[in-house]
């Protein structure tokens, strides 16, 4: 496996919209293994998207299993992911391997329903919430050339977080 170089803003490749994956072959699975190793090599990294390493294909990896006491699906390989339903809003702090030494608040949907393929092309459906849903929304944004910087809200002036329903 190979550690891939993570592109950092203002690299223009981070702003490119990625193409759907159509070939589910060994080359794809080797790339995914490298991408996952790159994510795990980054301190605190719980997700990565292919465009972060210069590959503009709709491939995302998320694994929030290191976080205690949250609902989550473990290691997720999400290819051609489509968020089909959104519900609720929550403000949370985000950082990004492609934006070092800066974190900021972003509003994300609290719960999402997601459809995606795995590395063999099989379709899966997921219902997720909270931290995991935030990570998936952050990574899916990368596939559309969006960074969390595009969605920043004030670090202050939101007196108390809304009660979760």
């Amino acid at each position, binding site marked *: 496996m190979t550690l891939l170089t993570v592109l950092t803003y203002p690299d223009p490749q981070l702003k490119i919209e990625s193409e759907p994956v159509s070939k589910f072959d060994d080359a794809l699975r080797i790339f995914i293994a490298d991408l996952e190793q790159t994510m795990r090599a*980054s301190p*605190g*990294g*719980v*997700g*990565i*998207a292919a465009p972060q390493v210069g590959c503009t294909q709709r491939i995302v990896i*998320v694994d929030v299993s290191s*976080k205690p006491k949250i609902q989550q699906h473990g290691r997720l390989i999400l290819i051609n992911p489509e968020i089909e339903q959104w519900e609720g809003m929550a403000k*949370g*702090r*985000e*950082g*990004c*391997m492609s934006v*070092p*030494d*800066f*974190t900021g608040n972003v509003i994300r949907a609290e719960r999402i329903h997601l459809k995606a393929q795995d590395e063999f092309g099989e379709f899966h459906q997921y219902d997720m919430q909270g*931290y995991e849903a*935030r*990570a998936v929304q*952050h*990574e899916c944004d*990368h596939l559309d050339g969006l960074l969390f910087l595009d969605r920043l809200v004030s*670090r*202050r*002036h939101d*007196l*108390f*977080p809304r009660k979760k329903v």
Partner: protein
Amino acid sequence: MKWYMLTLVGKDRPGIVAHVTSALFEGGCNLGETSMLRLGGNFTIMMMVSFNGNKHALQDMITGVAESLGLQVHIDAIDAKLHQHIEPDVSITVYGADRAGIVAKVTGALSEVGFHILDLESDVGGTEAQPIYVMYIDGKANEGIEAVEATLDLIRQEGIEVHLTPIDTMVG
């Protein structure tokens, strides 16, 4: 390049930031991290300025624009670096009927449990007859969030509303 902390304070009016930062840019300065906000009808600016000259040269550069805008100027040479952020892990909001000593009481309790304040802003709302005090704090709980919660419980018993929210930054 040397770093200076440049502080400017004066009666608020539109255009202060544009005029001040233009003068600094034309004088060859670069800005680092800054904080600029309106406090009680005054506009306050604190900014890291990198400049390849001495304090007097920086003072001369800013005096004209500061006088024209009615701003007081203070300059300190500082030992500073960019890219030294500490990531907060707790956000605390405090509110209550305004009374003397809220800030001292809350921050004193936080200090005793090793809480490191990274960002604090406070405001007074309500009416003149019934002012309310609101404070936002972001910081790092060096001795754990449980210790902070325990000390804030004591504050709550004195009728001050305090909310603690852990910050779990998602890095993707």
